């Protein structure tokens, strides 16, 4: 499969090269919109990642137009080179599709605790650098305690490493790597083994997966399973020990964290949560942070350990019954506070933050989002952990 893909890639590059050497003919017969549409359509039939094929075709035709606008194809090669760089080498979407989502590596990573992803990161001057996000998450054998009829309880150990690296550490605005070992415990609602009749109804829907009537019968049968249980309770807690560092491993925080997470989904339409379909989730954490002597915080004269607390509330609610369309409303509230922060941190207003985000979305994506408050340095949520590190050490 890959060989055919590489062959097609070679074929496209060969055609591009041939066209470079047949400039006069190219200029005479070139009907750009038709040729572009035809080439893009051909991408459907090539055994090549479609995103890559589209990027190659787009780069080629854009280069042709750009050079044609100058009345000469002399700079075609430069334009093509720049477009290929922008559309492929600087596109995390294309690189992820080519490297991680298709071919051999995709199947190797699919059931692996390791995840890898290219990420185009905005830097100053409207430029971007390509970063590689990595995460390794390995849960060791889970041990279940004596199961009751309604709940399962377990404990386990977990190891996590995650971060973002770029070719040059100084170019990395998300210069943050985290590694931690965790002891985790949890409890959750148990679904009792169902009688054969229920399994048969469920299996009938699976066997007729695009049958609307079978789906309704399945939903009704599942309602009969879930209603007596009241709802799904999920609780998780843990203690984590690890470190946060930068790509060059000079500055380092050791961190010990205690946390708890809970989620509840009501399956009883007679309750407030059940009638709205509202699913609340909450998470609390307390960190003890010890910076080393290379951290900016220590270099500024404060290498003492400190504590920080964080809390997060997340709500998800369907609103299809009000809008007539498949839509949902979400709310997220995050708060963060450094305990006993010194005056420098307090005066800079960096000892606490609150962030509220309201969104309305649907299966096709996000419709509306409103955020108030900010994270430190006004950076956004995906960088919050990095922020905690960069701001406070």
């Amino acid at each position, binding site marked *: 499969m890959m060989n055919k893909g590489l062959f097609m890639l070679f074929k496209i590059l060969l055609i591009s090269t041939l066209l470079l050497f047949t400039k006069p003919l190219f200029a005479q017969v070139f009907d750009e919109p038709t040729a572009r549409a035809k080439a893009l359509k051909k991408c459907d039939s090539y055994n090549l990642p479609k995103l890559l094929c589209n990027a190659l075709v787009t780069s080629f035709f854009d280069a042709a137009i750009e050079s044609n606008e100058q009345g000469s194809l002399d700079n075609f090669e430069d334009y093509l080179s720049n477009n290929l760089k922008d559309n492929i080498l600087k596109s995390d979407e294309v690189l992820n599709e080519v490297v991680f989502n298709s071919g051999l590596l995709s199947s190797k990573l699919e059931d692996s605790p390791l*995840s890898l992803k290219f990420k185009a990161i905005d830097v100053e001057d409207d430029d971007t650098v390509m970063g590689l996000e990595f995460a390794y998450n390995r849960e060791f054998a*889970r041990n279940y305690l004596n199961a009751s009829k309604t709940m399962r309880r377990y404990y386990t150990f977990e190891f996590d490493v995650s971060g973002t690296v770029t070719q040059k550490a100084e170019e990395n605005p998300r210069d943050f790597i985290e590694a931690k070992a965790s002891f985790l415990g949890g409890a959750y609602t148990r679904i009792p083994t*169902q009688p054969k009749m229920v*399994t048969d109804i469920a299996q009938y829907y699976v066997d007729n997966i695009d049958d609307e009537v079978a789906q309704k019968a399945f939903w009704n049968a599942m309602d009969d399973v879930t209603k007596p249980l009241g709802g799904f309770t*999920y609780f998780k807690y843990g203690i984590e020990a690890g470190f946060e560092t930068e790509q060059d491993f000079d500055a380092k925080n050791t961190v010990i964290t205690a946390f708890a997470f809970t989620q509840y989904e009501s399956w009883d339409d007679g309750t407030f949560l059940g009638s709205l379909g509202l699913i609340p989730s909450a998470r609390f954490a307390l960190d003890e942070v010890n910076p080393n002597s290379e951290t900016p915080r220590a270099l500024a004269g404060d290498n003492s350990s400190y504590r920080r607390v964080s809390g997060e509330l997340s*709500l998800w609610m*369907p609103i299809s019954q009000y809008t007539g369309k498949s839509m949902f409303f979400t709310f997220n509230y995050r708060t963060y506070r450094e305990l006993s922060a010194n005056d420098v941190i307090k005066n800079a207003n960096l000892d606490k933050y609150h962030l509220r985000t309201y969104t309305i979305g649907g299966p096709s994506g996000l419709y509306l989002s409103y955020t108030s408050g900010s994270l430190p340095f006004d950076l956004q949520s995906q960088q919050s952990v990095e922020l905690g590190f960069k701001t406070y050490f």
Partner: protein
Amino acid sequence: MSWSKNNNAHKTLWALITYFHKDTLQGQPFVKFADGGEWELGLVVKIAGNDSPEMIKDKAGAMATLLDEFFTGVFKTKYEKLSASVDENTARGDGIAAMSNALAQTDKKLKTVGDIVDEHYVFKGEVE
């Protein structure tokens, strides 16, 4: 990465996701299995805007746990990796952890989880 109507693991996964999202789906144009595979995992796991990475991971864990409970309690699936050295609790933990890791990749599609489910559970018509 496949998403096939010939695969009971994929179809059972979609069947349960429709139930977990029935409040969003009912009264709307019917969503077919093939289109369900294109659902983003952020939607599947019910992620809110600006959820932290830790919150996303924990929500993915809750969804993976819920799937495991319905697979075994309703569909009576067995664990694929059961052996003399792997007991049911270990296999359950492995299945939940694998699904949890996959579901936490919220920018990916539901179809990326199908084969992972298939690797950890034995569905109707499969040989243990």
